[in-house]
């Protein structure tokens, strides 16, 4: 995919900042419209608890999406985050459940394995020159198999709230006066701010974009392209590890063999939020907004009385429409 982006020489007469800001804005409006629509349609949706539910289920997707923004910006992709998430969580959970390790150690291991697979992906792509789609498709299969293999195929429940070690669930949600406070959302916002900074004001971010814009030119400029290319995947792996913890904290049991398809939600969110599949264009704030479109569809549609199956159909169409709006907008712009 990356080679499609090379040599975007003169001729594109619009600023990419405009374009990106533009799409973010459109998507933000879509989120708001959807929210108003669902609220109008369903009394259940208007409740505080619903908002908390949507947030709850959005954490792991949001974390994956923030991470995968980096490979996307290099013009690559990481398809292994979904099955990876389950794999990391299974292994971390296994240590806690079967080997009696403290939850903190389990969490650390979860993140570390995420980073290890990030390094593997990065090496496959940057050192061995495999197409990112393909390399991560393979690690997708490998993590899916590996996680299930290590735990012997059994589902792993992380400690429940109230149990020994259950404290980690309150990283994402604390109770105060009988109400749940979704503090996980604050973490997400914090991470988005940090990653925005990394992307826009550090070498790491600069080179990530540069690689997506023109890898060869970046290399010829004397940048250690391999290192930074690997790092994009490492960040993605790190965030997949964090997502694994969010997932374990929100849901009771982690089932091996699941997780395929999570990456679609995350990547779809990023793209809807304005990240370009051909690299260099996009931002983590956009990604976050895009993720909310996906999550609203996933958690919002059931509230207006649609069965799960209609949800899927509608999700499909909304995805296309979100992208089409952007395409038509751009067409109109360039037509002038």
């Amino acid at each position, binding site marked *: 995919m990356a080679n499609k982006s090379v040599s975007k020489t003169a001729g594109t007469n619009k600023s990419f900042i405009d374009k990106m800001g533009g799409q973010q804005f459109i998507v933000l409006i879509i989120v708001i419209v959807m929210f108003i629509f669902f609220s109008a349609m369903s009394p259940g949706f208007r409740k505080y608890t619903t908002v908390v539910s949507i947030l709850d289920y959005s954490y792991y997707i949001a974390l994956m999406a923030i991470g995968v923004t980096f490979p996307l910006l290099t013009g690559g992709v990481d398809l292994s985050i979904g099955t990876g998430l389950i794999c990391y969580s299974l292994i971390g959970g296994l240590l806690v459940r079967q080997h009696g390790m403290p939850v903190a150690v389990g969490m650390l291991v979860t993140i570390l394995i995420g980073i290890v697979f990030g390094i593997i992906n990065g090496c496959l792509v940057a050192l061995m020159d495999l197409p990112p789609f393909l390399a991560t498709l393979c690690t997708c299969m490998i993590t899916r*198999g590996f996680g299930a293999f290590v735990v012997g195929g059994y589902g792993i429940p992380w400690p429940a709230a109230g149990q020994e070690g259950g404290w980690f669930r309150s990283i994402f949600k604390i109770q105060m006066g009988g109400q749940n406070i979704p503090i996980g959302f604050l973490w997400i916002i914090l991470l988005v701010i940090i990653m925005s900074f990394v992307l826009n004001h550090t070498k790491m971010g600069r080179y990530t974009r540069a690689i997506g814009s023109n890898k060869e030119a970046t290399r010829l400029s004397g940048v250690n392209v391999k290192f930074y290319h690997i790092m994009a995947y490492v960040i993605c792996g790190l965030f997949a590890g964090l997502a694994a913890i969010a997932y374990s904290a929100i849901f009771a049991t982690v089932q091996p063999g699941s997780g395929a398809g999570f990456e679609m939600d995350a990547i779809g969110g990023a793209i809807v939020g304005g990240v370009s599949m051909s690299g260099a264009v996009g931002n983590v704030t956009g990604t976050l907004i895009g993720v909310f479109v996906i999550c609203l569809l996933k958690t919002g549609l059931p509230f207006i009385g649609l069965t799960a199956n209609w949800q899927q159909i509608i999700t499909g169409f909304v995805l296309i429409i979100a992208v089409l709006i952007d395409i038509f907008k751009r067409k109109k712009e360039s037509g002038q």
Partner: protein
Amino acid sequence: MGGRKVESIKQNPLVKKVGFNRIVLCIVLLLMYGLFCALTGGDFFGMRRILSALNYAYFLGFLSLAVTFVIATGGIDFSIGPVMFCCALMAGFCFTMYGMPMPAALLISLVIGLAFGIFNGYLVAYWNVPSFITSMASMNIAKGLASVFTKTQSVSWPQSSQEGGWFRNLVTIEDIPVGLIILIVIAVVCAILLNQTKMGRYILSLGSNKEAVRLSGVNVKKWEMSAYVVCGLLVGIAAIFFVGAYSTVQPGYGDQYNNEAIAGCVMGGTSMAGGLASISGTIIGVFIISLLQEGIMALGLDKNLQLIITGIIVIVAVFADVVARRRKN
């Protein structure tokens, strides 16, 4: 003009024709078979195992062929698995619930596949929606549509002895692998389509540089869409062979086959960047995957190992290709 010394690359004509990569894959395939025979103490030897492995190879083969066309244009299709299930579910439901005759059901499967192909192709080619998004959308739509249509029921196609069960003869008659013959015939048709016809030439060329082909006065939209249409039709065929071998499909699934189908295709030398595709490679790749799946099971090993090993083999195969190309340059 000066007489530049132009050395042509010396290569065995056979190797050149078939491709080094594919020869290696064939050897891998044979070695794997030998290895499994040895490890299982000869139990693996014989038709029964091969037939069983072939069951898996049929539908996967058609899926892989299907996605080869899309990948050749530089696109990607993650909806093949779910669409295959959607075809099988809706067509099967027409047969079991609405009492349609079997030929009509088979036709419906193809038509649904085709419809998704047209849908994907139209969005990608005419409206410039990234193929990743289109396929993600049609994956959701296929799952949802099938669930709504069948009321989330799984659908079982008739057994050989039941009415309409004759369609299983497409897969095997007694111990004759009819499906293999059909797969090979269709693969040959695909190969001709890709290498000998205008359509194939344009598909591969636009996969490599779409703008240049457009400026040559070619209707690139039509040809790009045609790749997705062929893909859809092949997915419809895959659905028939899936139920021919495994009878039952369940709504809401199918994505588990995407990766294996794409893996088979890429293992055989089709480039994810587009412009480069090999049908024979795809078929060999699919055989490797299905043999692996059968072999792992025969050894009594974990199914998960198959995923891991497939992943590693694809990485090695593609890396070998990368190295070979690097050495050339």
